[in-house]
C-alpha cells in the first residue's frame, strides 16, 4: 500500500481548499467526458467488429489493412447515419 491509498472521509474532504476543489471539479468533468467516449467506443467496436472482421479463424492478432479501413469507415458512416437520422427527425417535427 502506498501512502496515498486510504479511505477518504468527510474530514479529509473538508481539508480541500478552493483551488483544489476547482481542480477536482474540472477533473471529474473531463473524466465524465472520457468515460462517455469509452463506452461509445465499446458499443461501436461491437457493431463494427461484426461488419469488418469476418474471417472465420484468426491467423494473426493484428488487423489487416482492409479490416482497419473498414473499421474507420464503419465509425464514420455510423456517425453520418446518426446525423442523417437527427436531421430527418428535425424536419419531421417542423412539418407537424
Amino acid at each position, binding site marked *: 500500500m502506498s501512502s496515498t*491509498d486510504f479511505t477518504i472521509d468527510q474530514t479529509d474532504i473538508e481539508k480541500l481548499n478552493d483551488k483544489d476543489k476547482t481542480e*477536482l471539479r474540472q*477533473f471529474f468533468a473531463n473524466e465524465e467526458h472520457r468515460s462517455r*467516449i469509452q463506452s461509445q467506443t*465499446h458499443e461501436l467496436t461491437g457493431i463494427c467488429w461484426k461488419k469488418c472482421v469476418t474471417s472465420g479463424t484468426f491467423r494473426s*492478432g493484428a488487423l489487416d489493412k482492409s479490416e482497419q479501413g473498414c473499421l*474507420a469507415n464503419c465509425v*464514420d458512416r455510423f456517425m453520418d447515419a446518426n446525423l442523417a437520422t437527427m436531421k430527418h427527425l428535425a424536419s419531421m417535427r417542423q412539418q407537424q
Partner: protein
Amino acid sequence: MDSDSVKKAIIKQALQATNTANARTLIENINEKCFERCVPKPGSSLSSGEKTCLTSCMEKYMAAWNEVNATYIRRIQQEIGNQNLS
C-alpha cells in the same frame, strides 16, 4: 493530510475505478465475441486450435477497439470544428 494530498488521493481512486470498469467491459466483450467466433460447437474441452483462435481474436479485438476509439475521437473533434465554423 493536506489539501493537495487529499486531492491527489481522490484523483487516484477515481482513475482506478474508471480504468477497472473500462477493462472489465472490454474483457466481457472479448469473451463474448471470441467465444462466439472461436468455439462454434463446444466440445468436451477446448482444442489447441480453439485456444490459438481465442488468443489471436483477443489481440485483434483490442486492436479494433483502439482503431475505433481513434477514429471516433478524430470524428468528434472534426464535428466540434465544424460547429465552431458555422
